[in-house]
């Protein structure tokens, strides 16, 4: 632990033990400690100290690669995203109920939706947000072109495919405004790609 130096981020320190690089990332340690305390269910000094010890040992034992996630937490954006997710879940639950009890057969489709954001974090977060609301199931994510492939039920109705695409783009914008950097937000303010997205 000789040459302790500050990392690029002001809240993390990295150093070397033997041949391996170790990073102590303060936000990560704080988050792990919060989880530890919540799991124990009581807020006490003993839990706090133990939590920090466990978190630091975890970070030392299982080092994560040093990546710049580009994660920003924007409280207003997060609130808006959460509200939209809730609204979407309730309004779509009616739709899924209808599909479940609908008689007769339907046609499903796999639809490509090109995203405007480029960063890995935004891509992942958008895919996770889309998977959590009814109406779209992510089958494949292409990182190189930032394209999400959705499985859409009820594709007989042409409006269904379009509305699935629109909801992904809406989600993408909300996610970028909740967690994205300024650059990500600039990306999502561009107009959505027009026309048929398939190549």
């Amino acid at each position, binding site marked *: 632990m000789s040459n302790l130096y500050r990392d690029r981020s002001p809240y993390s320190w990295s150093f070397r033990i033997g041949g391996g690089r170790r990073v102590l990332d303060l936000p990560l340690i704080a988050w792990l400690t919060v989880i530890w305390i919540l799991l124990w269910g009581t807020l006490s000094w003993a839990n706090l100290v133990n939590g920090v010890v466990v978190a630091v040992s975890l970070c030392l034992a299982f080092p994560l690669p040093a990546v710049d996630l580009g994660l920003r937490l924007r409280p207003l954006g997060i609130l808006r995203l959460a509200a939209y997710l809730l609204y979407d879940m309730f309004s779509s639950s009616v739709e899924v*109920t209808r*599909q479940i009890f609908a008689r007769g*057969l339907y046609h499903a489709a796999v639809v490509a939706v090109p995203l405007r954001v480029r960063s890995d974090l935004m891509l992942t977060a958008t895919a996770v947000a889309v*998977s959590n609301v*009814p109406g779209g199931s992510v089958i494949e994510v292409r990182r190189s072109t930032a394209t999400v492939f959705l499985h859409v039920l009820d594709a007989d109705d042409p409006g269904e495919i379009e509305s699935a695409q629109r909801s992904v783009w809406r989600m993408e914008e909300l996610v970028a405004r909740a967690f994205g950097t300024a650059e990500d937000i600039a990306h999502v303010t561009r107009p959505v790609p027009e026309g048929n997205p398939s190549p």
Partner: protein
Amino acid sequence: MNAWGEAADLVGAVLLLLGCLQCLLGVIGMLRFPDVLSRSHAATKPQTLGMLLVLVGVALRLRHGIDLGTLALIVFFQFLTSPVASHLVARSAYRTGQTGSRGLLRDDLDPQLSDGERQGE
């Protein structure tokens, strides 16, 4: 117990019931849908909402700060992990051709996958 407590208990009970109904709906969907991909719709989406409702119901009955934190943690991890699982199921189902006997109305992914194989991706 005051009136607010009773009201919270009542709302909590209603939410628990609604959440259970929502989960039941998901199970019925799994029975009714014909193929893996459609079933994964029914298995993941109503469940997430149902679990959210159940947990809010539980929170309204418990009403302790630290319990709320634990419940929030459950919701957080549920939201984070269930898409990963359902994505992997959907991905392997698609790649092994389990798209249902009726086929897909439109498939944007298939040509891209074939391209990728030709380019040796």
